[in-house]
């Protein structure tokens, strides 16, 4: 293709751009560039065009529309394609309009505040609905769905044993190792046992279990209920007269509340096991001494502190998971965002409440 400034019969003094071969999408960019480079007034000679597609026609039409170029030598199909181009000339926006920066920041902040408020109100009203459902079920115990509850016990509790056990075992080792390194500097390695015993039983056992359950089960609750919302299963349930709270939410709440203390206790044991093996291997403290010393330095109260928190954490995890799942509307993408929200909110709330518990227990003298 050449852009030779020759004189055509049609328009003297005009620049003739000769298009040859195929003017299709694969040559759209180069053709456009060459047409842009040719100076006005422009004549497009299409007599040499063998093949043209809609994009090629558009490139030619553009030159006519924007620069008043003249077309010569267009035949048959080529002429027809170009003639039809203006029919579809309805410029459409490609991206939604963007507001100026400062307005956008304000809009975003406002959006967050409104959303946070709505989530809080929604969570409280969902809590109310759950409590009413719970009250109804307590009054009519025959309505408890035992099969659903038992299968949730299995999914939330039994199947989490492997991963929570491994995680806790490793945490015990890490606490022991880090404690030993620091305390060795003061010749106080023996206090590593105090550290392992108190921190895992009082704090880490329950907290890490809660985080794992939030990631494993809280997310599953949100995703399951969210998918059921999209496939209209929950609507179908309602029309049949089954309460989704009773059939879906309560078994999950029960499973989380009952399984959390059991899992937390198991996690504490596994952490102590990990810590015990570490001090045996590294500091040469035999298991029997470790257990004896553990009994001396870890008050039973620490166990209660750890175990009292567990069902509360379980309740929060199940509540946010089910709440977010029930909020899903529209498309499958929302299942993903809601599941993320469920996990983030559950872990956040668990840590906030853990802090509240920490202050509470030290105030009542359980130090």
């Amino acid at each position, binding site marked *: 293709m050449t852009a030779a400034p020759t004189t055509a019969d049609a328009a003297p003094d005009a620049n003739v751009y000769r298009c040859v071969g195929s003017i299709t999408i694969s040559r759209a*960019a180069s053709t*456009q560039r060459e047409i842009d480079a040719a100076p006005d007034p422009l004549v497009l000679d299409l007599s040499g065009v063998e093949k043209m597609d809609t994009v090629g026609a558009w490139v030619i039409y553009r030159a006519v529309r924007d620069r008043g170029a003249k077309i010569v030598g267009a035949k048959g199909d080529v002429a027809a394609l170009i003639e039809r181009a203006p029919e579809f000339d309805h410029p459409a926006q490609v991206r939604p309009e963007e507001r100026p920066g400062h307005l956008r920041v304000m809009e975003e902040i406002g959006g967050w505040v409104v959303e946070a408020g709505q989530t809080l109100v929604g969570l409280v009203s969902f809590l109310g609905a759950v409590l009413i459902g719970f009250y109804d079920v307590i009054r009519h115990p025959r309505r408890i769905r035992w099969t659903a509850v038992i299968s949730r016990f299995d999914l939330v509790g039994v199947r989490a044993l492997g991963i929570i056990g491994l995680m806790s075992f490793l945490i015990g080792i890490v606490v022991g190792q880090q404690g030993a390194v620091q305390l060795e500097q003061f010749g106080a390695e023996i206090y590593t046992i105090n550290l392992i015993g108190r921190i895992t039983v009082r704090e880490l056992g329950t907290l890490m279990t809660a985080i794992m359950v939030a990631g494993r089960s809280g997310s599953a609750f949100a995703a399951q209920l969210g998918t059921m919302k999209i496939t209209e299963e929950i609507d179908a349930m309602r029309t049949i007269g089954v309460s989704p709270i009773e059939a879906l939410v309560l078994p999950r709440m029960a499973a989380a509340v009952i399984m959390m203390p059991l899992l937390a206790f198991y996690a504490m044991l596994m952490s102590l096991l990990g810590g015990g093996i570490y001090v045996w291997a590294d500091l040469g403290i035999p298991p029997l001494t470790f257990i004896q010393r553990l009994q001396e330095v870890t008050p039973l109260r620490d166990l209660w502190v750890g175990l009292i928190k567990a069902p509360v954490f379980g309740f929060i995890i199940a509540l946010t998971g089910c709440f977010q799942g029930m909020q899903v509307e529209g498309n499958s993408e929302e299942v993903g965002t809601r599941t993320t929200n469920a996990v983030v909110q559950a872990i956040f709330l668990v840590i906030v409440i853990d802090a509240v518990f920490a202050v509470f227990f030290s105030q009542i003298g359980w130090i």
Partner: protein
Amino acid sequence: MSSETIITIRGLKNSFGDQIIHDDLDLDVRRGEILGVVGGSGTGKSVLMRSIIGLQIPDAGDVQVLNENMIGREEDEAKNIRRRWGVLFQNGALFSTLTVAENVEVPIREYFPFIKPPLLDEIASYKIAMSGLPANAGPKFPSELSGGMRKRAGLARALALDPELLFLDEPTAGLDPIGAAAFDDLIMALQKRLELTVFLITHDLDTLWAICDRVAVLADKKVVAVGTIEELLALDHPWIQEYFNGPRGRAAAAGLKGH
């Protein structure tokens, strides 16, 4: 109409586990025709389309599209074929994080990265207008569109590269009768204008009568018959008779003759 074949399928076999979907299936699609593919639920209409476009690897058989063998080829070679066809999936399959116009730009950007944004945006607008969407649909996200608009947006994306061959999977399913008729008209107009070959899976008898040049019937794991509806009516295959001569089939035929 030339009788050059654009898709040739020979001895196609597909199965999922023990369940055999296609067994020794043959089909030819001629250049420039609108071929309707019909069959009961579960006869593997979508699987057939997926085998042709390379999303499903058949157990056995040959598939040739545009004179190129589709089975067992490298992904790089297949790219040259992929830009010569467009596919409209059942629910549009639009990318949900992109606007409608950006969706249309995706194939163009992929194959022709040298096309500059102003021209690219104009091409996208052009295709959007061509598929019958209003200009204000351009900056919308797929979740903001109705089912019919989503299909038109999917069609605009399928047409982005000026394909020779268009695959449509139940384009009128889920549309109201007015929308479905408008979509039929659109496909027919585009097919004439762009000289497309259309492979159309449908359940819609009105669509079959209105726009299909030939109809292929899938039954008993094979294509049992291909031809115009009149030709098919002359056969005494029980499923075909029931399909076209059932109450709905007769109503669709009457509707067309009433026009």
